[in-house]
């Protein structure tokens, strides 16, 4: 859609326009540079977590998570409810910063840059890492405005009509809404809302896309459309997806991380290996449905 450069420029320009006293604005760091630098070298790991621990007040939700997410592939996170999958996802784009109780410890590299370094601006980081949440959360604005929200806040100039159509097509929603782009996003059904949120997340063209159970509210047809979409996205972007659906993880992902209760990463490997020949017995039990 647009080159690397215009985006990072737009990021800076936008900073300029926004409130200079904003406390989200830490010292200016261009995360994008480091990401591009990282991807142009031989390493094809784009996100690398090293000993990530997360606490909510005094409860530890994640224990020493270390894993490397490959570039332009789909990485799935599976595990029973409450094991910390969403928490880990939020570590990647520092959404945990917004939760007062949450405390994150450890290193998480996006490209060559530790996103928890003091000089990283979380807002600039989130412009490189898109996110789709577990519950659909469209804005009470028109469908069009929902899709364009990221572009507008990031100050990206583009052919808006084209971006709206492309993003909605990719999210398998275009045919259903093309005649009512000016209606409120809240008037859509739950599944349509979730696809709208996916369109919103991919519209500003992020590098990494985090999806927290994007298909949990969808019917089988829309689900398979979303799965196709994820496969398409993986050609261009790095996709990290949380899912409760084993078959889905097996179908769409290249790598799978299995979290188990207590917030531990039990196994992380190629999806095929995890599903056919897992190292750990607990993982095998979980996958075959013996517990969890």
């Amino acid at each position, binding site marked *: 859609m647009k080159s690397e450069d215009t985006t990072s420029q737009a990021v800076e*320009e*936008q*900073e*300029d*326009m*926004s*409130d*200079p006293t*904003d*406390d*989200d*604005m830490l010292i200016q760091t261009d995360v994008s540079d480091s990401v591009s630098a990282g991807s142009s070298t031989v390493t094809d790991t784009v996100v690398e977590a090293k000993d990530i621990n997360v606490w909510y007040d005094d409860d530890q939700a994640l224990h020493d998570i270390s894993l490397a997410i490959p570039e332009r592939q789909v990485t799935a996170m599976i595990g029973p409810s409450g094991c910390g999958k969403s928490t880990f996802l939020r570590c990647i*784009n520092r*959404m945990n910063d*917004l939760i*007062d109780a949450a405390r994150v410890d450890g290193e998480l590299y996006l490209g060559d840059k530790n996103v928890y370094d003091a000089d990283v601006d979380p*807002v*600039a980081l*989130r*412009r490189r890492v*898109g*996110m789709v*949440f577990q*519950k659909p*959360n*469209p*804005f*009470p604005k028109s469908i069009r405005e929902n899709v364009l*929200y*990221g572009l507008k*806040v*990031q*100050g990206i*100039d583009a052919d808006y009509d084209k971006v709206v159509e492309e993003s909605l097509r990719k999210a398998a929603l275009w045919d259903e809404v093309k005649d009512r782009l*000016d209606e409120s996003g809240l008037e859509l059904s739950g599944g349509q809302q979730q696809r709208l*949120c996916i369109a*919103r*997340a991919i519209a*500003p063209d992020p590098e990494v896309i985090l999806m927290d159970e994007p298909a949990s509210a969808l019917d089988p047809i829309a689900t398979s459309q979303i799965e196709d979409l994820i496969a398409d996205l993986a050609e261009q972007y790095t996709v990290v997806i949380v899912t409760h659906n084993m078959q889905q993880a097996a179908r769409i992902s290249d790598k799978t991380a299995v979290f188990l209760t207590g917030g531990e990463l039990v196994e992380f490997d190629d999806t095929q290996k995890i599903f056919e020949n897992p190292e750990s017995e607990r993982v095998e039990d979980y996958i075959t449905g013996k517990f969890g």
Partner: protein
Amino acid sequence: MAADSPSTVRDGFGTVSRTAGVVFRYALLAATLLGILAVGILFVYVANDAIQPFTADPGWHLTFFLTLVVPTLAVGYSLSGRGEGSLRVGLESLGLLAVMPLFAGGVAVLFLSILPALVVFSFAVALAIPLAAIVALQRTRQVGFVAKLVAAAVVTVASLLFVPNFIQNVPVIPVEWLLVALTIGAPTAAIAGAYAAASWNDRRVGRIAALAALGGVLVGGLVGSLTGVGGIAATVLATVAGVPVGLYVATVVDQHPTRREGLLLPLVVLGGMLLGAFLVRTVGFAGPASWLDWAFVTSDNSFSAESAGIYPALAGSIMLMLIVSLASFPIGIGAAVYLEEYAGNSRLTRLIEVNIANLAGVPSVVYGLLGLGLLARMLEDGLPVFPAVVADPLGLEPIRVGGDLFGIGTVFVGGLTLSLLILPIVIISSQEAIRSVPPSQRQASYGMGATRWQTVKNVVLPKAFPGILTGTILALGRAIGETAPLLVIGAPNEFGIPQELSSRVGAMPLQIYAWATTSGTEEFYTKVIPAGVVVLLVAMLAMNSVAIVLRNRYRQRN
């Protein structure tokens, strides 16, 4: 068990005792009714004194019963049977017709008695210029934020300094009602156009609506100035009442054809009133000897009960409300946004919040003392822009501005004191509204890479705004009824129409208090005061009705 159950069912399911529940329910009902009944009795009592309905001929009652009450009830009943929301449309349009002319009256008072049309117009232009400049600046992408801020500030200051003077000294001045039409009619038409464009989803409709609204205002003003109504009054009426009613009717007719019948209700009420008035006049039935009449609302105060009117007090209350809303709106909302969105959950913020909650309960007399001590006494010579403490050692003259505004019992001090009084309420209700914006909305915005300011501006404030407005208007309703703070800051017992911010303060509750204390004759107690109370309550209820309508709309949308 399984074998037993068929026989149990055949014998019936048995009953579960609900005695305690029923007793509880009726106890709750009694509590509810007691409160409502007490207020209702008070209303009836006061209204009876003010309007004296039983002094009318029985024939008068009968005529209106037949022309107004019976047809209205009949139409209302048939509408309620029809469903599809037509009764709601009927009641809404009736409410609009009842309330909007009251607001028009308030605005007309402002233009007729307080603010010269030319002055208002010149300031409106002086504010419109920087507004247009800011919009234009926001569109450009080349300049940075600081440059934009400086440019906007320069334009604003320059425009406010020079434009009003310039306009006020232009040799050819159009007629006053035309100025009023431009000052309030043009923005109203623009808003009507934007609303129509949004609700019809069509820019062309929006443009037509805006032009129609402006045309309607101009025609109204022209007709008013040619007939006895007066150009300014007619312009204001067309703007404040005509445009919203027209927009409502157009919306119903075009977008909810099944509810069209609802519009019959206001027509029947209006027709019934006119017909009744005509019949009563031709037959010669005497109406009630109401104390609350046009003359009472529009004439000056007096020592004799017969000629006492509430007009100066009404004008004073309107002026006070203007100051209060201008002062408490931005400060209160600003504080609420800061506390909710920016300040973390530290001990200090919790302390501040507890204090604000306590301030909301502080008696109004205390606020009066604050106004007296701080605004009327300490700042009597004006705001110390360049205070004596700094100026004296340097051998310079201290500079103070606004000396005439501050001082004992001025409208300005009264308005600020009332603003302080309702500020905690405004802050708390705005906080509540902001807190009710779901966290998932904020997360969605932050997740898209929005800064805090962008999130507040694009997501939080738009969604919280109706709630904020509701709370603020209800707080204004409290301010309009306050007497004690005004007394404490030195309000006089007699006052004229406050022409300037430095005039002596006057207000309706103050006037009622003055009638009750200094002119306390029987006539005053039984007629003038009830009439004044009814005017005050009507003004307050009209304001609150806006809040109620807003709240209902807001709830529907969620």
